[in-house]
């Protein structure tokens, strides 16, 4: 498939492997920076993950001029502005973000404020409107293998006044360097490992089948699914398996590159709404909703899903499945993955298991159809369609 027109960008340099963090001082020098602020949260400090980064920086002669560890679970305008204030007051010249999606999104938001001089970050809400040529040097060190935020040009930040999540999409938000070091994820408990992995899987499947899919994003999505198929069982069996952890971190990054360029669709739109309205953890929502979203899209994206069977089940299963049965087999393969994650790690398989009730479905659906992701879904969906998907997943 070749689109009539597409755009693609991934300028983040990737450091992947053992002791990758030890190369951050060199990367800072390459970015002509020497006084970074380290952005993280208190839980990660308590777990000792931040110390690994601080130790590497100290060994490389880099002095961190401030540590900002007050990032909450949901990034917000207030936190972004506060981080920008600390950065300015401490005289920093680069950002190192160590954490999951919230920490990385907070750093991206602060980078907008610092680079543009914006008084109100809301001025930059939208897509492709940040025109800053030189953002602050930004190094991302993910501590989960799921969001792919270390290579995406998107950030979600909560407006605490209006109680809405604001979307920011721009190639300018891409970090300069993404650092994948297995030490950052080897302590993740199985439940979180499974939840974040299914988020990455959903990124890859949706990016592969959405309106913006293109040959470059397809390649990243296929590679991501291959790694998840092979290594998710490995890390669920043994979280200390560093090869498996590195592979899963790469899978999340590959899926991140893919969806940053091809976008995501109805599963994310509904998942965001489940999170906003009912507090469902994002990865849990993705795992539960993905097979239902695929079934909804089947009549327009079935052929694409059929192609993914090769990556979801491997070459032998693909070759032995008749072409017309591959789309349904791909959905079954996703269900198998979710079922396996439920058995090994206690992943929920239905929305009712994560606190969603039938009475909440209309408000979730009304929220989902206003989520930008739904516009890139290969098949149109209105409120009644979304309620149908939610009922099937309840």
């Amino acid at each position, binding site marked *: 498939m070749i689109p009539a027109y597409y755009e693609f960008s991934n300028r983040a340099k990737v450091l992947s492997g053992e002791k990758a963090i030890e190369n951050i001082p060199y990367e800072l020098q390459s970015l002509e920076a020497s006084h970074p602020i380290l952005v993280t949260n208190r839980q990660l400090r308590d777990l000792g993950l931040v110390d690994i980064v601080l130790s590497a920086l100290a060994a490389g002669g880099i002095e961190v001029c401030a540590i900002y560890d007050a990032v909450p679970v949901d990034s917000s305008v207030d936190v972004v502005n506060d981080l920008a204030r600390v950065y300015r007051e401490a005289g920093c010249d680069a950002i190192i973000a160590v954490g999951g999606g919230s920490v990385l999104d907070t750093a991206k938001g602060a980078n907008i404020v610092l680079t543009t001089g914006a008084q109100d970050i809301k001025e930059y809400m939208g897509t492709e409107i940040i025109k800053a040529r030189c953002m602050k040097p930004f190094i991302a060190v993910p501590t989960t293998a799921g969001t792919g935020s270390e290579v995406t040009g998107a950030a979600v930040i909560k407006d605490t006044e209006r109680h809405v999540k604001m979307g920011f999409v721009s190639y300018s938000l891409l970090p300069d360097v993404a650092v994948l070091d297995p030490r950052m994820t080897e302590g993740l408990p199985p439940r979180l490992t499974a939840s974040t992995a299914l988020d990455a899987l959903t990124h890859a499947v949706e990016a592969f089948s959405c309106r913006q899919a293109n040959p470059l994003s397809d390649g990243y999505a296929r590679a991501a699914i291959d790694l998840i198929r092979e290594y998710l069982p490995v890390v669920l069996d043994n979280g200390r398996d560093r090869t498996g952890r590195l592979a899963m971190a790469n899978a999340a990054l590959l899926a991140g590159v893919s969806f940053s360029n091809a976008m995501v669709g109805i599963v994310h739109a509904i998942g965001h709404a489940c999170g906003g309205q009912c507090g469902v953890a994002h990865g849990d929502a993705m795992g539960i909703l993905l097979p239902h979203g695929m079934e909804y899209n089947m009549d327009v994206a079935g052929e694409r899903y059929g192609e993914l069977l090769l990556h979801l089940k491997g070459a032998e299963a693909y070759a032995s499945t008749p072409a017309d049965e591959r789309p349904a087999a791909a959905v079954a393969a996703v269900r198998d993955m979710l079922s396996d994650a439920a058995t090994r790690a206690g992943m929920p398989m239905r929305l009712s298991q994560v606190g969603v009730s039938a009475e909440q479905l209309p408000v979730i659906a009304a929220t989902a159809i206003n*989520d*930008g992701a*739904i516009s890139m879904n290969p098949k149109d969906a209105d409120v009644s369609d979304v309620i149908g998907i939610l009922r099937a997943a309840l």
Partner: protein
Amino acid sequence: MKTDVRVRPGLAKQGARVLAKVVFAVMGRGLVACARIDPRVRAEALSWPEGTTITLAILPGHPSVTVRKLNGRLRSLGSKGAGGSTLLVTFKSADAAVPVLLGMKSILQSFAEHRATVRGDLGLAMSLVRCLHIVEGYLYPDIINRRILPRPAVREAAGHLRAYAGLLGGSVNLKQEGAAS
């Protein structure tokens, strides 16, 4: 050596701008007309906060159309009032806008191809897209609609002719129309 390399846009480019200006004006008035005749568009507009100002434009200084909701009325301001928009959808060039405006390419496909940028709340942008799909359903013949709309056009309340007639009006009282229908 010749250093003056200014190039004037060709006739086709100038034509595209003129065309965009005309179709933008029709779209703005079409949105207002459909808010009058179709309850789905009216419901979307009623959900927008008071003072919402939506602008469709092609790069700064080029053709644009602005629609504003104020005091319960939805009004097309034409090419005036493009400043201070709550939601600004900007096509990156006239060449990017014309296929969309002429019904040769869907709005969603245009976004998928990065032909346009959005400044403002993406939720409001989704609401606008739903409205524009309904407007296109009234303004374009079904042979075009089948190609650009995500699902078959439904003209719930009126036919093409009433929508075209509605283009003559520049504003609509949303609450009054809602009570009347």
